[in-house]
Protein backbone atom coordinates (compact mmCIF):
# COMPACT_ATOMS: atom_id res chain seq x y z
CA UNK A 1 0.00 0.00 0.00
CA UNK A 2 1.21 3.48 -0.87
CA UNK A 3 2.48 5.52 2.07
CA UNK A 4 0.73 8.88 2.29
CA UNK A 5 2.25 11.88 4.04
CA UNK A 6 -0.02 14.02 6.26
CA UNK A 7 -0.02 16.65 3.51
CA UNK A 8 -1.14 14.08 0.94
CA UNK A 9 -3.87 12.84 3.30
CA UNK A 10 -5.05 16.42 3.77
CA UNK A 11 -5.25 16.73 0.00
CA UNK A 12 -7.17 13.44 -0.24
CA UNK A 13 -9.61 14.78 2.33
CA UNK A 14 -10.25 17.82 0.15
CA UNK A 15 -10.74 15.56 -2.87
CA UNK A 16 -13.32 13.63 -0.84
CA UNK A 17 -15.00 16.93 0.04
CA UNK A 18 -15.21 17.81 -3.63
CA UNK A 19 -16.78 14.43 -4.37
CA UNK A 20 -19.27 14.96 -1.53
CA UNK A 21 -20.43 18.29 -3.01
CA UNK A 22 -20.68 16.82 -6.51
CA UNK A 23 -22.48 13.69 -5.37
CA UNK A 24 -25.03 15.35 -3.14
CA UNK A 25 -25.69 18.11 -5.68
CA UNK A 26 -26.22 15.49 -8.42
CA UNK A 27 -28.56 13.62 -6.08
CA UNK A 28 -30.36 16.82 -5.07
CA UNK A 29 -30.29 15.63 -1.46
CA UNK A 30 -28.05 14.05 1.15
CA UNK A 31 -26.00 15.11 4.14
CA UNK A 32 -23.01 17.23 3.14
CA UNK A 33 -22.43 19.00 6.49
CA UNK A 34 -21.31 15.97 8.49
CA UNK A 35 -19.59 14.48 5.48
CA UNK A 36 -17.34 17.53 5.28
CA UNK A 37 -16.64 17.56 9.02
CA UNK A 38 -15.52 13.93 8.98
CA UNK A 39 -13.55 14.00 5.69
CA UNK A 40 -10.15 14.39 7.38
CA UNK A 41 -10.74 11.35 9.55
CA UNK A 42 -12.10 9.24 6.68
CA UNK A 43 -9.12 10.15 4.49
CA UNK A 44 -6.73 9.33 7.36
CA UNK A 45 -8.36 5.94 7.89
CA UNK A 46 -8.55 4.84 4.27
CA UNK A 47 -5.23 6.28 3.08
CA UNK A 48 -3.03 5.66 6.09
CA UNK A 49 -4.43 4.04 9.23
CA UNK A 50 -6.39 1.03 8.01
CA UNK A 51 -4.98 -2.24 6.77
CA UNK A 52 -7.30 -3.08 3.89
CA UNK A 53 -7.28 -4.38 0.34
CA UNK A 54 -9.77 -2.92 -2.13
CA UNK A 55 -9.10 -5.87 -4.44
CA UNK A 56 -10.15 -8.27 -1.68
CA UNK A 57 -12.85 -6.60 0.43
CA UNK A 58 -13.50 -9.83 2.36
CA UNK A 59 -9.84 -10.32 3.37
CA UNK A 60 -10.26 -11.81 6.80
CA UNK A 61 -7.37 -9.96 8.43
CA UNK A 62 -8.49 -6.52 7.24
CA UNK A 63 -9.23 -3.71 9.64
CA UNK A 64 -12.95 -2.99 9.80
CA UNK A 65 -14.75 0.33 9.70
CA UNK A 66 -18.32 0.89 10.87
CA UNK A 67 -19.94 4.18 9.91
CA UNK A 68 -22.39 4.61 12.76
CA UNK A 69 -23.43 8.03 11.50
CA UNK A 70 -24.64 6.40 8.30
CA UNK A 71 -26.06 9.60 6.83
CA UNK A 72 -22.54 10.71 5.91
CA UNK A 73 -22.42 7.84 3.42
CA UNK A 74 -21.22 10.22 0.65
CA UNK A 75 -17.81 10.73 2.24
CA UNK A 76 -17.45 6.98 2.88
CA UNK A 77 -18.43 6.14 -0.71
CA UNK A 78 -15.96 8.73 -1.99
CA UNK A 79 -13.16 7.18 0.08
CA UNK A 80 -14.05 3.67 -1.07
CA UNK A 81 -14.06 4.75 -4.71
CA UNK A 82 -10.79 6.68 -4.36
CA UNK A 83 -9.30 3.59 -2.69
CA UNK A 84 -10.31 1.43 -5.65
CA UNK A 85 -13.27 -0.56 -4.33
CA UNK A 86 -15.38 0.59 -7.29
CA UNK A 87 -15.07 3.16 -10.09
CA UNK A 88 -15.07 6.83 -9.13
CA UNK A 89 -17.56 7.50 -11.94
CA UNK A 90 -20.19 5.52 -9.97
CA UNK A 91 -20.22 8.18 -7.24
CA UNK A 92 -22.72 10.41 -9.05
CA UNK A 93 -25.31 7.60 -8.93
CA UNK A 94 -25.69 8.31 -5.20
CA UNK A 95 -29.33 8.05 -4.04
CA UNK A 96 -30.56 7.21 -7.54
CA UNK A 97 -32.86 4.32 -8.37
CA UNK A 98 -30.92 1.12 -8.99
CA UNK A 99 -27.64 2.45 -7.55
CA UNK A 100 -25.61 0.46 -5.07
CA UNK A 101 -24.95 3.81 -3.40
CA UNK A 102 -28.10 3.98 -1.32
CA UNK A 103 -28.87 7.03 0.81
CA UNK A 104 -27.41 5.19 3.78
CA UNK A 105 -24.76 2.40 3.61
CA UNK A 106 -25.93 -1.16 2.98
CA UNK A 107 -23.85 -4.21 3.78
CA UNK A 108 -23.57 -6.56 0.83
CA UNK A 109 -24.46 -3.89 -1.71
CA UNK A 110 -21.25 -1.87 -1.73
CA UNK A 111 -17.81 -3.48 -1.62
CA UNK A 112 -16.07 -2.23 1.51
CA UNK A 113 -19.22 -1.41 3.47
CA UNK A 114 -19.14 -3.65 6.54
CA UNK A 115 -22.52 -2.97 8.14
CA UNK A 116 -25.89 -1.46 7.27
CA UNK A 117 -26.37 1.76 9.18
CA UNK A 118 -28.45 4.90 8.95
CA UNK A 119 -30.63 4.52 11.98
CA UNK A 120 -28.49 6.32 14.52
CA UNK A 121 -27.14 4.85 17.70
CA UNK A 122 -26.45 1.30 16.52
CA UNK A 123 -22.96 1.33 15.01
CA UNK A 124 -20.96 1.16 18.22
CA UNK A 125 -22.74 -2.06 19.21
CA UNK A 126 -22.00 -3.55 15.79
CA UNK A 127 -18.36 -2.51 16.05
CA UNK A 128 -18.17 -4.13 19.50
CA UNK A 129 -19.49 -7.38 17.99
CA UNK A 130 -16.89 -7.30 15.22
CA UNK A 131 -14.11 -6.49 17.69
CA UNK A 132 -15.26 -9.30 19.99
CA UNK A 133 -15.22 -11.80 17.10
CA UNK A 134 -11.65 -10.73 16.35
CA UNK A 135 -10.68 -11.21 19.96
CA UNK A 136 -12.33 -14.65 20.13
CA UNK A 137 -10.56 -15.70 16.94
CA UNK A 138 -7.23 -14.25 18.16
CA UNK A 139 -7.00 -11.92 15.16
CA UNK A 140 -4.99 -8.73 15.17
CA UNK A 141 -7.34 -6.58 13.13
CA UNK A 142 -8.66 -3.29 14.48
CA UNK A 143 -12.28 -2.21 14.35
CA UNK A 144 -12.85 1.51 13.83
CA UNK A 145 -16.18 3.21 14.31
CA UNK A 146 -17.23 6.77 13.53
CA UNK A 147 -19.97 8.20 15.73
CA UNK A 148 -21.83 11.45 15.29
CA UNK A 149 -22.05 13.62 18.37
CA UNK A 150 -25.84 13.98 18.15
CA UNK A 151 -26.34 10.23 18.02
CA UNK A 152 -24.69 9.90 21.42
CA UNK A 153 -28.01 11.13 22.79
CA UNK A 154 -29.23 7.60 22.04
CA UNK A 155 -28.97 5.16 24.95
CA UNK A 156 -27.77 2.16 22.98
CA UNK A 157 -24.34 3.81 22.64
CA UNK A 158 -23.92 3.72 26.38
CA UNK A 159 -24.93 0.07 26.52
CA UNK A 160 -22.17 -0.56 23.99
CA UNK A 161 -19.79 1.68 25.92
CA UNK A 162 -20.21 -0.54 28.99
CA UNK A 163 -19.85 -3.69 26.89
CA UNK A 164 -16.58 -2.62 25.26
CA UNK A 165 -14.97 -2.11 28.66
CA UNK A 166 -16.44 -5.27 30.18
CA UNK A 167 -15.04 -7.35 27.30
CA UNK A 168 -11.76 -5.38 27.22
CA UNK A 169 -11.95 -4.65 23.50
CA UNK A 170 -8.46 -3.23 23.07
CA UNK A 171 -8.73 -3.42 19.29
CA UNK A 172 -11.79 -1.17 19.13
CA UNK A 173 -11.11 2.48 18.36
CA UNK A 174 -14.07 4.82 18.07
CA UNK A 175 -14.18 8.43 16.92
CA UNK A 176 -16.71 11.13 17.65
CA UNK A 177 -17.27 13.80 15.02
CA UNK A 178 -17.87 16.55 17.59
CA UNK A 179 -19.15 19.26 15.28
CA UNK A 180 -21.69 20.44 17.86
CA UNK A 181 -24.58 20.70 15.43
CA UNK A 182 -27.54 18.43 14.81
CA UNK A 183 -30.72 18.92 12.74
CA UNK A 184 -32.39 21.16 15.31
CA UNK A 185 -29.21 23.14 15.89
CA UNK A 186 -26.70 23.38 18.75
CA UNK A 187 -26.34 19.96 20.40
CA UNK A 188 -26.08 21.64 23.79
CA UNK A 189 -29.46 23.29 23.33
CA UNK A 190 -31.17 20.21 21.86
CA UNK A 191 -29.83 17.75 24.45
CA UNK A 192 -26.51 18.58 26.02
CA UNK A 193 -23.57 16.21 25.55
CA UNK A 194 -20.68 17.99 27.26
CA UNK A 195 -18.37 16.68 28.39
CA UNK A 196 -18.08 13.64 26.15
CA UNK A 197 -14.49 13.15 27.28
CA UNK A 198 -15.55 12.95 30.92
CA UNK A 199 -18.49 10.70 30.10
CA UNK A 200 -16.35 8.14 28.29
CA UNK A 201 -13.63 8.37 30.95
CA UNK A 202 -16.28 7.58 33.55
CA UNK A 203 -17.30 4.53 31.50
CA UNK A 204 -13.70 3.32 31.58
CA UNK A 205 -12.50 4.13 28.05
CA UNK A 206 -9.13 5.49 26.99
CA UNK A 207 -10.13 8.94 25.75
CA UNK A 208 -8.27 11.45 23.58
CA UNK A 209 -9.54 14.83 22.53
CA UNK A 210 -8.07 16.30 19.37
CA UNK A 211 -8.57 18.76 16.52
CA UNK A 212 -10.40 16.57 14.02
CA UNK A 213 -9.11 18.57 11.08
CA UNK A 214 -5.45 18.15 11.99
CA UNK A 215 -4.08 15.03 10.28
CA UNK A 216 -1.09 14.86 12.62
CA UNK A 217 -3.47 14.85 15.59
CA UNK A 218 -5.57 12.08 14.05
CA UNK A 219 -2.61 9.86 13.17
CA UNK A 220 -0.95 10.55 16.51
CA UNK A 221 -4.08 9.75 18.53
CA UNK A 222 -4.62 6.49 16.66
CA UNK A 223 -1.00 5.53 17.26
CA UNK A 224 -1.33 6.18 20.99
CA UNK A 225 -4.69 4.35 21.12
CA UNK A 226 -3.20 1.31 19.41
CA UNK A 227 -0.44 1.19 21.99
CA UNK A 228 -2.95 0.74 24.81
CA UNK A 229 -2.88 -2.70 26.35
CA UNK A 230 -6.16 -2.32 28.16
CA UNK A 231 -9.68 -1.25 27.23
CA UNK A 232 -11.27 0.36 24.19
CA UNK A 233 -10.26 3.81 23.00
CA UNK A 234 -12.26 6.76 21.78
CA UNK A 235 -10.99 9.85 20.05
CA UNK A 236 -13.23 12.87 20.46
CA UNK A 237 -12.54 15.04 17.44
CA UNK A 238 -13.49 18.68 17.68
CA UNK A 239 -14.65 19.54 14.18
CA UNK A 240 -16.51 22.13 12.17
CA UNK A 241 -19.67 21.04 10.42
CA UNK A 242 -19.41 21.85 6.72
CA UNK A 243 -15.59 22.19 7.01
CA UNK A 244 -13.88 23.40 3.85
CA UNK A 245 -16.71 25.41 2.30
CA UNK A 246 -17.01 28.85 3.89
CA UNK A 247 -20.78 29.28 3.76
CA UNK A 248 -21.45 25.72 4.92
CA UNK A 249 -19.21 25.90 7.97
CA UNK A 250 -21.07 25.82 11.29
CA UNK A 251 -24.34 25.94 9.37
CA UNK A 252 -26.85 23.36 10.63
CA UNK A 253 -28.93 24.00 7.52
CA UNK A 254 -26.49 21.88 5.51
CA UNK A 255 -26.94 18.87 7.80
CA UNK A 256 -29.44 17.34 5.46
CA UNK A 257 -29.67 19.33 2.26
CA UNK A 258 -27.60 19.60 -0.89
CA UNK A 259 -26.26 22.76 -2.51
CA UNK A 260 -28.41 24.77 -4.88
CA UNK A 261 -26.80 25.50 -8.28
CA UNK A 262 -25.24 28.82 -7.26
CA UNK A 263 -24.05 27.36 -3.95
CA UNK A 264 -22.60 24.43 -5.83
CA UNK A 265 -20.51 26.68 -8.09
CA UNK A 266 -19.18 28.57 -5.11
CA UNK A 267 -18.42 25.42 -3.09
CA UNK A 268 -16.60 23.74 -5.98
CA UNK A 269 -14.59 26.90 -6.61
CA UNK A 270 -13.46 27.05 -2.98
CA UNK A 271 -12.54 23.38 -2.81
CA UNK A 272 -10.68 23.49 -6.12
CA UNK A 273 -8.72 26.49 -4.87
CA UNK A 274 -7.79 24.50 -1.77
CA UNK A 275 -6.54 21.74 -4.05
CA UNK A 276 -4.39 24.08 -6.18
Amino acid sequence: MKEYTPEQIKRKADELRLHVIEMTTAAGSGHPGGSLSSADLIASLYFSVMKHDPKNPQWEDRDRFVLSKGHVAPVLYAALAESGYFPVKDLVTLRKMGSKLQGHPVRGKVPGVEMSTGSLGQGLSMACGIALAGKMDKKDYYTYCLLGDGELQSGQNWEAAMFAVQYDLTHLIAFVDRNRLQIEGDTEKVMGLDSLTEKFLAFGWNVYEIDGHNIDHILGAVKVAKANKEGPSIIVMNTVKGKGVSFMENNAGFHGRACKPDEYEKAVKELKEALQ
Partner: protein
Amino acid sequence: MTQKLAQRNYYGKALAKLAETNPNVIAMDADLAGSTKTSEFRKVAPERFVEVGIAEQNLIGIAAGLAASGKTVFASTFAVFASGRCWEQIRLALAYPKLNVKVVSTHCGISVGADGASHQALEDMAIMRALPNMVVISPADAYEAYAATLAIAEYDGPVYMRLGRADVPVLFPEDVKFEIGKAKVLRTGTDVTLIGTGQMVALCMEAADMLEKEGITADVIDMSTIKPLDTQAIVTSVSKTGCAVTAEEHSVIGGLGSAVSEFLSENMPCPVTRIGTRDTFGESGDPDELFKKYGLTAEDIREAAKRSIGMKE
Protein backbone atom coordinates in the same frame (compact mmCIF):
# COMPACT_ATOMS: atom_id res chain seq x y z
CA MET B 1 -51.49 -38.81 31.61
CA THR B 2 -49.84 -36.94 28.78
CA GLN B 3 -46.14 -36.29 29.24
CA LYS B 4 -45.28 -32.62 29.54
CA LEU B 5 -41.94 -30.93 28.89
CA ALA B 6 -40.83 -27.31 28.65
CA GLN B 7 -39.64 -26.13 25.25
CA ARG B 8 -36.99 -23.87 26.75
CA ASN B 9 -35.33 -26.82 28.45
CA TYR B 10 -34.97 -28.54 25.11
CA TYR B 11 -33.70 -25.34 23.52
CA GLY B 12 -31.00 -25.44 26.20
CA LYS B 13 -30.20 -29.08 25.44
CA ALA B 14 -29.94 -28.35 21.71
CA LEU B 15 -27.68 -25.36 22.41
CA ALA B 16 -25.45 -27.55 24.56
CA LYS B 17 -25.18 -29.98 21.67
CA LEU B 18 -24.32 -27.14 19.29
CA ALA B 19 -21.71 -25.94 21.76
CA GLU B 20 -20.02 -29.32 21.46
CA THR B 21 -20.45 -29.90 17.76
CA ASN B 22 -20.18 -26.49 16.10
CA PRO B 23 -17.28 -24.26 17.15
CA ASN B 24 -18.75 -21.42 15.12
CA VAL B 25 -21.86 -21.04 17.29
CA ILE B 26 -22.08 -18.23 19.84
CA ALA B 27 -24.89 -17.92 22.41
CA MET B 28 -25.89 -14.59 23.90
CA ASP B 29 -28.24 -13.49 26.61
CA ALA B 30 -29.44 -10.37 28.41
CA ASP B 31 -29.36 -11.39 32.07
CA LEU B 32 -31.85 -14.23 31.68
CA ALA B 33 -29.63 -17.19 30.81
CA GLY B 34 -30.99 -19.30 33.67
CA SER B 35 -34.55 -18.76 32.44
CA THR B 36 -34.01 -18.97 28.68
CA LYS B 37 -31.62 -21.91 29.21
CA THR B 38 -28.77 -20.44 27.23
CA SER B 39 -27.06 -21.31 30.53
CA GLU B 40 -26.79 -24.85 29.14
CA PHE B 41 -24.58 -23.54 26.35
CA ARG B 42 -22.52 -21.55 28.85
CA LYS B 43 -21.80 -24.73 30.82
CA VAL B 44 -20.23 -26.37 27.78
CA ALA B 45 -18.61 -23.39 26.03
CA PRO B 46 -18.27 -20.45 28.43
CA GLU B 47 -15.72 -18.81 26.09
CA ARG B 48 -18.37 -18.60 23.38
CA PHE B 49 -21.15 -17.33 25.62
CA VAL B 50 -21.72 -13.57 25.59
CA GLU B 51 -23.61 -11.86 28.38
CA VAL B 52 -24.68 -8.29 27.58
CA GLY B 53 -26.58 -7.41 30.73
CA ILE B 54 -30.02 -5.85 30.58
CA ALA B 55 -29.42 -4.22 27.20
CA GLU B 56 -31.44 -5.81 24.42
CA GLN B 57 -30.67 -3.21 21.76
CA ASN B 58 -26.98 -3.77 22.32
CA LEU B 59 -27.62 -7.52 22.28
CA ILE B 60 -28.76 -7.28 18.67
CA GLY B 61 -25.97 -4.94 17.59
CA ILE B 62 -23.30 -7.20 19.08
CA ALA B 63 -24.99 -10.22 17.50
CA ALA B 64 -24.92 -8.47 14.12
CA GLY B 65 -21.22 -7.69 14.45
CA LEU B 66 -20.42 -11.28 15.41
CA ALA B 67 -22.51 -12.65 12.53
CA ALA B 68 -20.84 -10.26 10.08
CA SER B 69 -17.58 -11.81 11.22
CA GLY B 70 -18.77 -15.30 10.31
CA LYS B 71 -20.33 -16.51 13.55
CA THR B 72 -23.68 -18.28 13.91
CA VAL B 73 -25.33 -16.41 16.75
CA PHE B 74 -28.18 -17.42 19.06
CA ALA B 75 -29.45 -14.39 21.01
CA SER B 76 -32.06 -14.99 23.69
CA THR B 77 -34.22 -13.22 26.20
CA PHE B 78 -37.94 -13.12 27.02
CA ALA B 79 -40.23 -12.75 23.99
CA VAL B 80 -41.55 -9.31 24.95
CA PHE B 81 -38.04 -7.87 25.11
CA ALA B 82 -36.50 -9.91 22.28
CA SER B 83 -39.10 -8.77 19.78
CA GLY B 84 -40.20 -5.42 21.13
CA ARG B 85 -37.36 -3.61 22.85
CA CYS B 86 -35.03 -4.09 19.90
CA TRP B 87 -37.39 -4.41 16.94
CA GLU B 88 -35.77 -1.67 14.93
CA GLN B 89 -32.31 -3.00 15.71
CA ILE B 90 -33.45 -6.38 14.37
CA ARG B 91 -34.86 -4.64 11.30
CA LEU B 92 -31.72 -2.68 10.37
CA ALA B 93 -28.90 -4.77 11.78
CA LEU B 94 -30.20 -8.30 11.11
CA ALA B 95 -33.11 -8.51 8.69
CA TYR B 96 -31.98 -5.95 6.11
CA PRO B 97 -28.44 -7.36 5.64
CA LYS B 98 -29.76 -10.92 6.19
CA LEU B 99 -27.26 -11.68 8.93
CA ASN B 100 -26.98 -15.10 10.48
CA VAL B 101 -28.56 -14.44 13.87
CA LYS B 102 -31.24 -16.54 15.56
CA VAL B 103 -33.32 -14.50 17.97
CA VAL B 104 -34.80 -17.21 20.15
CA SER B 105 -37.25 -15.95 22.73
CA THR B 106 -38.80 -17.77 25.64
CA HIS B 107 -41.75 -16.92 27.89
CA CYS B 108 -44.10 -16.16 25.03
CA GLY B 109 -47.85 -15.79 25.46
CA ILE B 110 -50.16 -15.66 28.46
CA SER B 111 -48.96 -19.03 29.77
CA VAL B 112 -46.24 -16.93 31.43
CA GLY B 113 -49.05 -16.50 33.98
CA ALA B 114 -48.33 -14.68 37.22
CA ASP B 115 -45.91 -12.07 35.85
CA GLY B 116 -48.78 -10.38 34.05
CA ALA B 117 -49.20 -8.43 30.83
CA SER B 118 -45.78 -6.71 30.91
CA HIS B 119 -44.19 -10.13 30.39
CA GLN B 120 -46.77 -11.81 28.15
CA ALA B 121 -45.77 -11.42 24.50
CA LEU B 122 -48.90 -11.56 22.36
CA GLU B 123 -47.64 -9.45 19.46
CA ASP B 124 -44.18 -10.84 18.74
CA MET B 125 -45.04 -13.02 15.76
CA ALA B 126 -46.90 -10.12 14.14
CA ILE B 127 -44.04 -7.67 14.35
CA MET B 128 -41.41 -10.22 13.37
CA ARG B 129 -43.45 -11.57 10.47
CA ALA B 130 -43.71 -8.07 9.01
CA LEU B 131 -39.92 -7.90 8.54
CA PRO B 132 -38.58 -8.87 5.10
CA ASN B 133 -36.02 -11.72 5.17
CA MET B 134 -37.20 -12.89 8.59
CA VAL B 135 -38.10 -16.53 9.23
CA VAL B 136 -40.60 -16.98 12.09
CA ILE B 137 -40.86 -20.28 13.93
CA SER B 138 -43.09 -21.47 16.75
CA PRO B 139 -42.62 -25.18 17.58
CA ALA B 140 -45.44 -27.26 19.05
CA ASP B 141 -43.62 -29.19 21.74
CA ALA B 142 -40.26 -29.61 23.43
CA TYR B 143 -38.90 -32.18 20.99
CA GLU B 144 -39.86 -30.06 18.00
CA ALA B 145 -38.17 -27.10 19.69
CA TYR B 146 -35.01 -29.19 20.01
CA ALA B 147 -35.10 -30.21 16.35
CA ALA B 148 -35.90 -26.66 15.24
CA THR B 149 -32.93 -25.27 17.16
CA LEU B 150 -30.57 -27.62 15.33
CA ALA B 151 -32.27 -26.90 11.99
CA ILE B 152 -32.02 -23.12 12.23
CA ALA B 153 -28.34 -23.41 13.15
CA GLU B 154 -27.85 -24.86 9.66
CA TYR B 155 -29.81 -22.08 7.95
CA ASP B 156 -27.82 -19.00 6.93
CA GLY B 157 -30.01 -16.02 7.77
CA PRO B 158 -32.07 -14.28 10.43
CA VAL B 159 -34.66 -16.29 12.34
CA TYR B 160 -37.08 -15.45 15.12
CA MET B 161 -38.21 -18.45 17.17
CA ARG B 162 -40.65 -18.20 20.09
CA LEU B 163 -40.78 -20.74 22.88
CA GLY B 164 -42.88 -21.10 25.99
CA ARG B 165 -41.94 -21.10 29.64
CA ALA B 166 -44.27 -23.78 30.98
CA ASP B 167 -44.31 -27.55 30.52
CA VAL B 168 -46.46 -28.39 27.51
CA PRO B 169 -47.80 -31.72 26.20
CA VAL B 170 -45.43 -33.86 24.15
CA LEU B 171 -46.81 -34.52 20.67
CA PHE B 172 -43.85 -35.97 18.85
CA PRO B 173 -41.28 -38.71 19.33
CA GLU B 174 -37.91 -37.59 20.61
CA ASP B 175 -36.31 -37.91 17.17
CA VAL B 176 -38.89 -35.76 15.35
CA LYS B 177 -37.50 -33.95 12.31
CA PHE B 178 -37.86 -30.25 11.64
CA GLU B 179 -37.68 -28.53 8.30
CA ILE B 180 -38.12 -24.74 8.03
CA GLY B 181 -41.35 -23.94 6.20
CA LYS B 182 -42.74 -27.46 6.40
CA ALA B 183 -45.96 -28.05 8.34
CA LYS B 184 -46.87 -31.40 9.89
CA VAL B 185 -50.26 -33.04 9.49
CA LEU B 186 -51.00 -34.76 12.80
CA ARG B 187 -54.46 -36.04 12.14
CA THR B 188 -56.77 -36.28 9.15
CA GLY B 189 -60.46 -35.68 8.73
CA THR B 190 -62.87 -34.22 6.21
CA ASP B 191 -64.97 -31.47 7.81
CA VAL B 192 -62.60 -28.79 9.05
CA THR B 193 -58.89 -27.92 9.11
CA LEU B 194 -57.48 -27.00 12.52
CA ILE B 195 -54.21 -25.13 12.10
CA GLY B 196 -52.32 -24.55 15.30
CA THR B 197 -48.92 -23.25 16.31
CA GLY B 198 -46.95 -23.56 19.54
CA GLN B 199 -48.68 -25.27 22.42
CA MET B 200 -52.06 -24.61 20.74
CA VAL B 201 -51.38 -27.60 18.48
CA ALA B 202 -51.95 -29.91 21.46
CA LEU B 203 -55.25 -28.15 22.15
CA CYS B 204 -56.24 -28.57 18.48
CA MET B 205 -55.69 -32.31 18.95
CA GLU B 206 -57.93 -32.26 22.03
CA ALA B 207 -60.57 -30.30 20.14
CA ALA B 208 -60.41 -32.81 17.28
CA ASP B 209 -61.11 -35.61 19.80
CA MET B 210 -64.14 -33.73 21.10
CA LEU B 211 -65.41 -33.04 17.60
CA GLU B 212 -65.07 -36.66 16.62
CA LYS B 213 -67.47 -37.61 19.42
CA GLU B 214 -69.96 -35.31 17.72
CA GLY B 215 -69.36 -36.93 14.35
CA ILE B 216 -67.11 -34.17 12.99
CA THR B 217 -63.66 -35.07 11.72
CA ALA B 218 -60.78 -32.65 11.43
CA ASP B 219 -57.36 -32.28 9.86
CA VAL B 220 -54.90 -31.01 12.45
CA ILE B 221 -51.85 -29.17 11.17
CA ASP B 222 -48.85 -28.12 13.21
CA MET B 223 -47.85 -24.85 11.52
CA SER B 224 -44.50 -24.61 13.24
CA THR B 225 -43.15 -22.14 10.69
CA ILE B 226 -45.28 -18.99 10.47
CA LYS B 227 -43.04 -17.52 7.79
CA PRO B 228 -42.49 -18.79 5.19
CA LEU B 229 -45.97 -20.26 5.51
CA ASP B 230 -46.48 -23.81 4.22
CA THR B 231 -49.21 -22.81 1.79
CA GLN B 232 -49.13 -26.19 0.07
CA ALA B 233 -50.19 -27.90 3.31
CA ILE B 234 -53.05 -25.40 3.67
CA VAL B 235 -54.22 -25.87 0.08
CA THR B 236 -54.12 -29.65 0.34
CA SER B 237 -56.18 -29.69 3.51
CA VAL B 238 -58.62 -26.85 2.92
CA SER B 239 -59.43 -27.96 -0.61
CA LYS B 240 -60.77 -31.09 1.09
CA THR B 241 -62.42 -29.61 4.19
CA GLY B 242 -63.56 -26.23 2.85
CA CYS B 243 -63.00 -24.32 6.09
CA ALA B 244 -60.42 -23.66 8.76
CA VAL B 245 -59.69 -22.63 12.33
CA THR B 246 -56.39 -21.12 13.39
CA ALA B 247 -55.16 -21.31 16.97
CA GLU B 248 -52.26 -19.41 18.52
CA GLU B 249 -51.23 -18.14 21.94
CA HIS B 250 -50.88 -14.69 20.44
CA SER B 251 -53.10 -11.86 19.26
CA VAL B 252 -55.39 -12.68 16.35
CA ILE B 253 -53.85 -9.58 14.78
CA GLY B 254 -50.79 -10.28 12.69
CA GLY B 255 -49.78 -13.82 13.62
CA LEU B 256 -50.77 -17.27 12.40
CA GLY B 257 -54.46 -16.38 11.98
CA SER B 258 -53.57 -13.40 9.87
CA ALA B 259 -51.04 -15.31 7.78
CA VAL B 260 -53.48 -18.11 7.02
CA SER B 261 -56.40 -15.72 6.39
CA GLU B 262 -54.33 -13.56 4.08
CA PHE B 263 -53.31 -16.56 2.03
CA LEU B 264 -56.77 -18.11 1.89
CA SER B 265 -58.64 -14.89 1.08
CA GLU B 266 -56.30 -14.20 -1.82
CA ASN B 267 -56.24 -17.75 -3.15
CA MET B 268 -59.17 -19.89 -2.05
CA PRO B 269 -61.69 -17.89 0.00
CA CYS B 270 -63.40 -19.98 2.67
CA PRO B 271 -64.59 -19.58 6.27
CA VAL B 272 -61.75 -19.09 8.76
CA THR B 273 -62.21 -18.58 12.50
CA ARG B 274 -59.24 -17.35 14.47
CA ILE B 275 -58.49 -18.41 18.02
CA GLY B 276 -56.14 -16.06 19.84
CA THR B 277 -56.31 -13.07 22.13
CA ARG B 278 -58.64 -10.46 20.69
CA ASP B 279 -56.85 -7.12 20.74
CA THR B 280 -56.23 -7.19 24.45
CA PHE B 281 -53.38 -7.41 26.96
CA GLY B 282 -53.19 -10.36 29.31
CA GLU B 283 -53.01 -10.22 33.12
CA SER B 284 -51.62 -12.07 36.11
CA GLY B 285 -53.16 -15.42 36.87
CA ASP B 286 -52.95 -19.17 36.62
CA PRO B 287 -52.26 -20.13 32.98
CA ASP B 288 -55.25 -22.51 32.79
CA GLU B 289 -57.61 -19.86 34.12
CA LEU B 290 -56.12 -17.29 31.75
CA PHE B 291 -56.60 -19.63 28.80
CA LYS B 292 -60.28 -19.91 29.77
CA LYS B 293 -60.74 -16.18 30.20
CA TYR B 294 -59.05 -15.29 26.93
CA GLY B 295 -60.76 -17.97 24.85
CA LEU B 296 -57.78 -20.23 24.17
CA THR B 297 -59.09 -23.63 25.32
CA ALA B 298 -59.82 -26.83 23.39
CA GLU B 299 -63.52 -26.06 23.90
CA ASP B 300 -63.03 -22.68 22.23
CA ILE B 301 -61.36 -24.38 19.29
CA ARG B 302 -64.22 -26.90 19.09
CA GLU B 303 -66.80 -24.09 18.96
CA ALA B 304 -64.73 -22.23 16.39
CA ALA B 305 -64.67 -25.36 14.23
CA LYS B 306 -68.46 -25.57 14.35
CA ARG B 307 -68.67 -21.89 13.46
CA SER B 308 -66.43 -22.32 10.43
CA ILE B 309 -68.30 -25.43 9.32
CA GLY B 310 -71.62 -23.58 9.73
CA MET B 311 -70.40 -20.79 7.46
CA LYS B 312 -69.60 -23.14 4.57
CA GLU B 313 -71.96 -22.69 1.61
